[in-house]
């Protein structure tokens, strides 16, 4: 796969993922659901980890990582954490950090599970 094709796949995936994240966060804000960006970051990390573990390749991997990269966010997470610290809301900070740890665990677990299921010796390429 050419790098140009990978970039197109990543770009289109990021557009889709970002719009999906915006819609999910809109629902989170409207119905005042706890958890914040963990609602997008944890599933995105799990799917990306599974793709890595399953050694996916080519444009499907690029598109998938584009979607996961677009669906997940660090800027909104950093804002969530910074606002919780500044507002001296330890409960919010603990909740956000729990989401971070859950996302890490989901991604690492999915990668290990994917690799184990396919009997892959090594993790897939970290292309994008």
């Amino acid at each position, binding site marked *: 796969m050419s790098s140009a094709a990978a970039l197109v796949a990543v*770009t289109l995936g990021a557009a*889709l993922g970002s719009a999906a994240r*915006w819609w999910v966060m809109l629902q989170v804000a409207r119905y005042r659901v706890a958890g914040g960006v963990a609602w997008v970051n944890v599933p995105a990390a799990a799917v990306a980890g599974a793709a890595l573990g399953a050694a996916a390749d080519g444009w499907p991997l690029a598109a998938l990582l584009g979607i996961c990269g*677009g669906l997940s966010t660090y800027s909104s*997470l*950093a804002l969530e954490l910074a606002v919780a*610290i500044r507002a001296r809301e330890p409960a919010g900070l603990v909740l956000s950090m729990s989401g971070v740890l859950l996302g*890490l665990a989901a991604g690492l677990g999915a990668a290990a599970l994917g690799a184990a299921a396919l009997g892959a010796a090594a993790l897939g390429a970290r292309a994008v």
Partner: protein
Amino acid sequence: MVRPIGTADGHLAGRPPPTDPPGPALLIRTSLGVAAGGALGGLARGVAVAVAGALGWPVWPVVLAINVAGSAAIGVAARGISRAWLTAGVLGGFTTFSGWVLDVAVLLPEHPVAAVALAVATPVLCVAATAAALPRAAR
């Protein structure tokens, strides 16, 4: 002018969440703006990672720099009216939580110390970057 509507950013920055659901036209327009911004941010991230790969650099320092830069930028954006296409779109598409998790997963088997360092450093540096850039009134 696109009226800023219920982004989580706006809610977190202390502004009240919207009470009236936005109309379908505004929803469609804003979601298209977020998708376009996300495409731009994702493309910028993809180019940065591709360039790093072409130069033989590891990916994780690039993703770390992207996440810290995007976190600083959202702090700056919080000084004004939050624009969904910019904050949720460009910055959300540019920064990546899943990419960070992947980098930790890739580093872990052979470089466990570096993996743990990246796992700890990324959230710390990103929060510090946002906090430094946030307006004084919100501090």
